[in-house]
């Protein structure tokens, strides 16, 4: 087991628990997709894993080591990279500078330069735009840059929060293609997606998160074809949680 | 012919029996407490009339009323809406100068013109709010600090009203024994008005909107609250009673001078009172004002009036901010230990 999240609760400030006992089991080299309605706490979960938010209880274990009380920079050095939902680039720095910043924790300059070139091979667009300011990139390019930034560090786990958010369908497909490429390279991927079908298609295993709790999990392709999941989370009305249906789902979870 | 009560009604009735014996009389005792407090304050000057030896106490009470007025009014914008004003003494300054000018140039008594002074302060607040409250967050605080400095600068250079040295106002023609009484009642009325206003606002839809703004302005806006309008209105309204109080205070002191009204320290003390008592509560500002006046008096009597008082004010504020950001009333309420006498809604 590479990364294990055990019954974690977390929330913001003095507010209520947003995560209300979430568990994940992430194995080396596999890819995982977390789906769930808006406000389920998916982003919060990723933020908690990478240390931007401290868990209130439960444990996060990576390579046998508890991460609970580490700072984000320490967790990053352990090998977990995060690409947040809003991409979080440095708007007033060029593409190249953004990538240099990505190597902030590396000390060897030549090595960093080399890694940047490798990343340019995966995302050739970025090479063309390397001296352009990040804030002037298109949405798709920004997403590429955000992913490239995470890849610089050759992490053990890469966590992507809604990489297709706000992208035109064609561009989104490109992004999913690059995710699949990463998967073929043997990288461990933890993906959060609103676009649940596409997300599950990229993944080996799927988790359904709702109201801060695990609701369902299983092999990605079987989730894709599960009628209940389909009705609740894959339907046309993306992002709206049909009221009153949760109970059936819970029964489903209990029954499974 | 009465119908049989439903189950809910029975439960409710039972609750009243069990809890009522605990709760109901206390509500009464709170009302009684406030009522007798007001009576005592209203009757207190009789002692002075009878003996003539209570001028000091009248002065202290009057000064407390002034501060209660300021703190309770500040609470409307700073406590409910969460927009901290570090320039609220500007309102009393404007009230003082308006009433003072009317007295000097037209011979109108500030007792008559005080409400007008309040209205002018309101309008001023409206104007200032229009400029600064369209922005969100901390730009407002910065602007209020600048407001104090700017107003002081303006009046320092306004020779017609005495500039830096200020100008004296005619005395109220009453014997020394009685001269404080009209001010006392005037200020008491202002303070009660300010507290009552803040109470009413807290329990209104408007107040709910303000508190939503304090919680999360974006969400408030999404929920359809006209946030800018509410903020600007709250700021303007919070200027009315300070304007009135300022008019009375100027007449009471018998002079106008920029330094008394437009000192940063004065603004800080208003904020401190509310923070000490409890932001966003009704009783907090009153409690804070009383405590701070008493504390200042104690320290000045004990150690004399030194610069260290400024440091003390700062230190107290720092400690409250870090350790008791909810103030006395807020902290007690969070711990469910607030005495009913201080739970004013």
């Amino acid at each position, binding site marked *: 087991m590479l990364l294990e999240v055990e019954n974690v609760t977390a929330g913001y*400030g003095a507010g209520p628990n947003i995560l209300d006992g979430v568990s994940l089991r992430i194995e080396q080299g596999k890819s995982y997709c977390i789906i769930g309605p808006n406000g389920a706490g998916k982003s919060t979960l990723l933020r908690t894993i990478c*240390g*931007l938010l401290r868990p209130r209880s439960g444990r996060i274990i990576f390579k046998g080591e508890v991460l609970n009380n580490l700072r*984000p*920079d320490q967790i*990053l*050095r352990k090998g977990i990279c*995060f690409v*947040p939902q809003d991409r*979080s*680039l*440095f*708007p*007033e*720095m060029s593409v190249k*500078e953004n990538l*240099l*910043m*990505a190597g*902030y*924790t590396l000390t060897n300059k030549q090595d960093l330069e080399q890694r940047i070139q490798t990343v340019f091979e995966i995302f050739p667009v970025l090479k063309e735009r390397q001296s352009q300011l990040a804030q002037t990139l298109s949405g798709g390019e920004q997403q590429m840059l955000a992913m490239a*930034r995470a890849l610089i560090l050759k992490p053990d786990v890469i966590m992507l929060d809604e990489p297709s958010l706000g992208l035109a369908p064609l561009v989104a497909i490109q992004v999913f293609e690059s995710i699949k490429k990463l998967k073929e390279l043997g990288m461990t991927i933890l993906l959060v997606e609103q676009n649940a079908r596409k997300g599950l298609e990229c993944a080996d295993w799927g988790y359904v998160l709702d109201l801060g709790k695990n609701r369902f999990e299983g092999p990605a392709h079987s989730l894709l074809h599960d009628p209940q999941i389909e009705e609740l989370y894959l339907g046309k009305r993306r992002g709206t949680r049909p009221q009153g249906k949760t109970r059936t789902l819970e029964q489903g979870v209990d029954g499974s | 012919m009465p119908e049989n009560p439903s189950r809910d009604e029975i439960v409710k009735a039972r609750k009243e029996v069990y809890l009522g014996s605990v709760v109901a009389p206390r509500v009464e005792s709170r009302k009684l407490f406030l009522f007798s407090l007001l009576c005592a304050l209203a009757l207190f000057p009789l002692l002075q009339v009878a003996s003539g030896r209570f001028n000091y106490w009248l002065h202290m009470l009057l000064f407390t009323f002034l501060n209660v007025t300021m703190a309770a009014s500040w609470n409307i914008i700073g406590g409910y809406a*969460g927009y*901290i004003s*570090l320039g609220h003494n500007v309102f009393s300054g404007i009230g003082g100068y308006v009433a003072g000018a009317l007295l000097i140039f037209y011979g109108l008594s500030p007792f008559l013109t005080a409400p007008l002074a309040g209205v002018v302060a309101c309008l001023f607040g409206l104007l200032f709010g229009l*400029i*600064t409250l*369209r*922005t*969100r*967050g*901390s*730009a407002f*605080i*910065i*602007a209020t*600090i*600048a407001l104090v*400095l*700017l107003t002081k*600068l*303006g009046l*320092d250079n306004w020779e017609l009203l005495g500039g830096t040295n200020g100008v004296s106002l005619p005395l109220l023609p009453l014997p020394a024994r009685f001269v404080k009484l009209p001010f006392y009642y005037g200020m008491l009325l202002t303070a009660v008005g300010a507290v009552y206003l803040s109470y009413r606002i807290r329990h209104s839809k408007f107040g709910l909107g303000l508190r939503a703004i304090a919680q999360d302005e974006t969400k408030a806006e999404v929920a359809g609250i006209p946030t800018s309008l509410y903020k600007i209105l709250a700021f303007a309204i919070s200027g009315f009673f300070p304007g009135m109080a300022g008019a009375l205070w100027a007449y009471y002191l018998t002079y106008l001078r920029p330094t008394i009204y437009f000192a*940063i*320290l004065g603004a*800080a003390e208003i*904020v401190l009172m509310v923070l000490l008592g409890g932001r966003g509560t009704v009783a907090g500002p009153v409690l804070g004002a009383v405590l701070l006046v008493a504390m200042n008096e104690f320290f000045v009597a004990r150690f004399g009036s030194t*610069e*260290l008082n*400024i*440091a*003390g*004010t*700062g*230190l107290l*504020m*720092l400690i409250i*901010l*870090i350790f008791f*950001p909810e103030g006395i009333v807020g902290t007690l309420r969070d711990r469910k230990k607030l005495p009913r006498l201080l739970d004013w809604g």
Partner: protein
Amino acid sequence: MIQLVQVFLLGLTLGGVYALMASGLTLIFGVMRIVNIAHGAFILFAAYLAYWGFKLYQIDPMFSLLFTMPVMFLLGMGIYRLLFPRIAGSRRFTSMTVLLTFSLALIMEGVMGFLYSGIYRSANPPYTTRALLFGPFYLPLAQLYATLLSLVLLGLLFLFLRFTRTGRAIRATMQNRTAAQIVGVNVEQISTLAFGIGTALAGASGSMVSFLFTFFPAKHWQWIGTLLALIVLGGMGSLPGSVVGSFLLAVIAAYLGYFYGPTWSPITFYLALFLILLIRPEGLLGKKLEA
């Protein structure tokens, strides 16, 4: 005409010092979203240090920054560590910082008032009474030296931010705090450092102030008004913005003082502040002030 140019020059040579004052404040706001109302008090405290260094040990106040800067650097980091982690994560963080640094300013004012009383002071090394004459114009040497020194310091700050690893981390944190965390910047450490650098810049400003102006403990309120206007003008958190703003306002203030008398020149800053809030709430170059 000659007069007008002269006024321009006088304003310009004050601009550098204002820029130095504002840069520390901007750095602190930019990195941590802290509005440091105590910045003026820090400057004043350093001015007293420089003043006593001159009075007691005849240290030229210009060189006093060799000790005011380190002292203020350490003091700043200490204060940051002591106070700010405690309010981190509170709602309306920036508003909280205003109140917190406001109380800090009161404490410092009170202590300085107690120690040094309200007497007006100023260090007077020989160059404070001399002027550089060229053609029909003159420049007071003190002002000239102070501005040149300020520009040197600003240049160093620029080089540090631009070309060192730590400097890049500071800039990255200013641009996007979360992003900085994600790439492995220890933002708490960077914040402590940035606060220290900000107060060290206040220290340097204090050294200049000690021989440029007369000062007394409550004087910092005048400066904080000025400084806040400067950084609002510069667009909160933008260093180039605050430098440009400083020069601009210094020159305008000089003209206002020339035409309407010196008591009116501070009004420039306040009016500028309101004007900016009215027409461009986000400042000239950029960022919005958020809660």
